[in-house]
């Protein structure tokens, strides 16, 4: 089966930003003005040399989704972006691991409008249970790791992919401990590979999510980097690195921008194994009001820049 990759040149290092409303790292609301991108976001982006960016969609409020409600805020973002080769969308509402009967018609229509208006090159979302019965989970649960769960996930991904006007990138889910548990005994790497092969979907590998799975299996040290060939490496278009921590022997996907050494080692091992990899994103960095990266995050970010430099140069 052909893999539906985004049509783009090699992009190298990019950034992913979670654009929440009422958040200094997202959109801020001012009376009389409305929602605008926080000043620190463009300040940060202008200080770095990212080649692409993806933005995580967050609902503004509890209204039915309408593009016009999002245009002022998103326009203010795009008006202030530095030059980038591509932009993309990280969705949070597709619920690809859903156990519910979904009616995504209005959501997909809204998504396509957003993709067209801002010329976003792809849509990505973690393969997870983001909501159950219309109620959001604190952190997306992995999909049901059973044969029936896999069959359902293949159906959901196929259906969403066919309705989107841009390629869908399915992301390996997180197994972060604390607000997450696993139902089913299938190996998650095998599950994800079969899903990719059956649907022809391109994939995103998140280093924190992969490590969290191995950690959850009880693996430590060198074993954390095992089984990579069980992943759908030929389908991998993008890799994400967000801040992770190990707290009381728990692997936690905290998204605070501070990369762990294990994430960078895993990236090094994935780079030569993913023949169609074109994009690597530093996800959810945290920066101050002048747009300066937090000092604790700098060593990891600099190492990430070194690792992706050859990729960036070839772009």
């Amino acid at each position, binding site marked *: 089966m052909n893999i539906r990759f985004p049509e783009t040149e090699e992009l190298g290092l990019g950034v992913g930003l979670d654009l929440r409303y009422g958040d200094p790292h997202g959109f801020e609301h001012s009376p009389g003005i409305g929602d605008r991108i926080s000043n620190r976001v463009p300040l940060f982006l202008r200080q770095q040399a990212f080649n692409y960016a993806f933005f995580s969609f967050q609902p503004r*409020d*509890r209204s039915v*989704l309408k593009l016009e409600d999002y245009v002022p805020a998103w326009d203010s973002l795009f008006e202030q972006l530095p030059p980038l080769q591509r932009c993309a969308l990280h969705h949070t*509402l597709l619920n690809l691991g859903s156990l*519910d009967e979904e009616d995504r018609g209005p959501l997909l229509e809204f998504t396509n409008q957003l993709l067209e208006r801002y010329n976003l090159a792809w849509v990505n979302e973690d393969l997870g249970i983001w909501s*159950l019965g219309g109620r959001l989970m604190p952190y997306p649960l992995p999909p049901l790791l059973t044969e*029936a769960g896999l069959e359902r996930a293949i159906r959901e991904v196929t259906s969403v992919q066919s309705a989107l006007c841009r390629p869908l990138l399915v992301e390996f889910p997180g197994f972060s401990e604390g607000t997450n548990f696993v*139902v*089913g005994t299938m190996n998650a790497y095998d599950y994800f590979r079969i899903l990719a092969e059956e649907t022809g979907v391109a994939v995103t590998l998140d280093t924190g999510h992969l490590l969290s799975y191995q950690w959850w299996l009880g693996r430590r040290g060198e074993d954390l980097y095992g089984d990579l060939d069980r992943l759908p490496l030929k389908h991998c278009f993008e890799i994400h690195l967000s801040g992770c921590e190990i707290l009381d022997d728990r692997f936690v996907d905290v998204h605070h921008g501070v990369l762990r050494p294990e994430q960078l080692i895993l990236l090094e091992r994935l780079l030569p194994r993913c023949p169609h990899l074109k994009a690597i994103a530093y996800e959810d960095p945290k920066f101050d009001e002048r747009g300066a990266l937090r000092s604790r995050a700098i060593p990891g970010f600099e190492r990430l820049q070194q690792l992706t430099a050859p990729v960036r140069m070839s772009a």
Partner: protein
Amino acid sequence: MNAEISTARELLHRLLHSPETRAAFVATGPAGIDAPDSLHSALESIDHRQLTATADAIASGLIHRKHRGSPGLAASYSKSLESANLTAPDAFKEVVRRFVGSVPFANYREIPTAEGKGLCIEEAFFLFLEEAKLGDSETRRNEFWTALFRALALQPDPNFRIPLAVQRTWRGYRYVAATAEGPRLYAAVDGRFLTGVLTPLLANVLATNGARHPNGPQGWDECAQRLQTMGVLDG
């Protein structure tokens, strides 16, 4: 296969929201919650500690979650909780835990599903308080309608179900509640929340949608005009 998914969905819902189901599961495993044999091995893989932590996080999320135009459950229902001596953090946490296991919570939806829109969190919590008879009835009702209309003022096309008693007007929504102090209007008009006790005449004008009575009392037209200007009565 679909039956297995639907059963798994139902069991997950109960495991996450019902403390009794969780306790039975932790004590006796899948058999203790009447899970079919086909799901035993999948359910046995659940880490009990993580399941409990996730359930706690759901309750904690409800305690801290705020929406645009809504300050959160504790603030929206502060007087009801106060009258029931439930404002202390631990007491409120326990109330929210009970709420999560209730029928009104099961009818709450943050996101519409194929089954349509659900109750908003404010209405679900109000119905829970009503069923549990927590706090004073009139205070509960006032806090509910206030919270609902504040939400409608900022989200006139909401992704939750609006109670049938609420009337749509050209410029927003209105509802008149019978209270001890007289008929009270709640309205969401042009992005603003309005409330106040009505005179009997104003209440009559609204109840008849402004339709003029042949022998209508004096001042009827002026009242209708005033309500139209406010946006709570269509012209």
